[in-house]
């Protein structure tokens, strides 16, 4: 897809369809190692070994409305085209972990895109589910930096009466992600 964040949205939708109550999304950039890793884990119903084997085949899909599913196959292809790698691990009744590793220096690298918007949309559209989003950066020099957004913590602070899709919450999440991302990337905050 034209942005990797759209792939994240797509894979997370698979997790939601699998009945997950917790979805963990990790974006880790290692600049000296020239890797960008995107990992999406869920506690959904999982897949059988046979399903796992076929999930990267676009003509194998659980969808009933059409016979072609390209979400996972494209994510895999995009990672491998940069010289990276792709894996899916899944267990019935336990959940699924999808991991794609990209080589950002490759000419075929697709931009990450607006990952914060993807996370914010996922939380807003699925207020009953929990999300953990972590972003890490190992810069060329200096120490590794990271931050996280955990909806369980938000729930504790907000109490039971405030849903996670309340407009004020969505706005707060947007600003939290924007500020922490700017700090992580070492960009000057807006004056």
């Amino acid at each position, binding site marked *: *897809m*034209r942005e990797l964040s*759209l792939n994240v949205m797509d894979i997370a939708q698979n997790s939601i369809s699998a009945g997950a109550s917790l979805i963990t999304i990790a974006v880790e950039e290692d600049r000296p190692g020239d890797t960008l890793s995107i990992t999406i884990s869920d506690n959904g119903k999982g897949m059988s070994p046979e399903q796992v084997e076929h999930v990267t*085949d*676009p*003509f194998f899909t659980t969808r009933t409305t*059409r*016979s*072609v599913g*390209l979400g996972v*196959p*494209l994510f895999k*292809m995009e990672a491998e085209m940069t010289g990276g790698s792709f894996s899916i691990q899944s267990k019935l009744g336990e959940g699924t972990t999808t991991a794609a590793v990209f080589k950002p220096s490759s000419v075929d690298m697709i931009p990450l895109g607006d990952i914060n918007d993807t996370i914010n949309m996922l939380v807003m559209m699925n207020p009953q589910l929990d999300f953990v989003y972590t972003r890490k950066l190992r810069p060329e020099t200096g120490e590794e930096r990271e931050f996280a957004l955990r909806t369980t913590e938000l729930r504790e602070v907000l109490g039971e009466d405030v849903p996670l899709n309340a407009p004020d919450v969505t706005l707060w999440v947007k600003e939290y992600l924007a500020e922490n991302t700017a700090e992580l990337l070492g960009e000057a905050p807006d004056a």
Partner: protein
Amino acid sequence: MTVKEMADACGWKLLAGEDGQDNQAEGCYVGDLLSWVMGRAQAGNVWLTVMGNLNAIAVAALADTSCIVLCEDAALDADAQKRADMQGIPVYSCTPNLYETAVQVYEQLK
């Protein structure tokens, strides 16, 4: 015109999907970024690309393009060939580049 007539006129070589050669060629789309093509190619389009993998066959099936033309002698993977045969999606090969091939298609569809 059918894609077979188009292929004969343009000098393309059939690599797979013989059963679909009577598909009507209506318009043309050029692109290699599969997710992009998936949302933009129209049904019946002659699709010019260099992507000869299984995912490209899936995109052609989804978008209902009339055929795939692999320009600049781009290779077709073995599993993609098998699937194109099963789906009846004609896949052709040619030596000219995407631009030159698009011009040929334009002339035929005029």
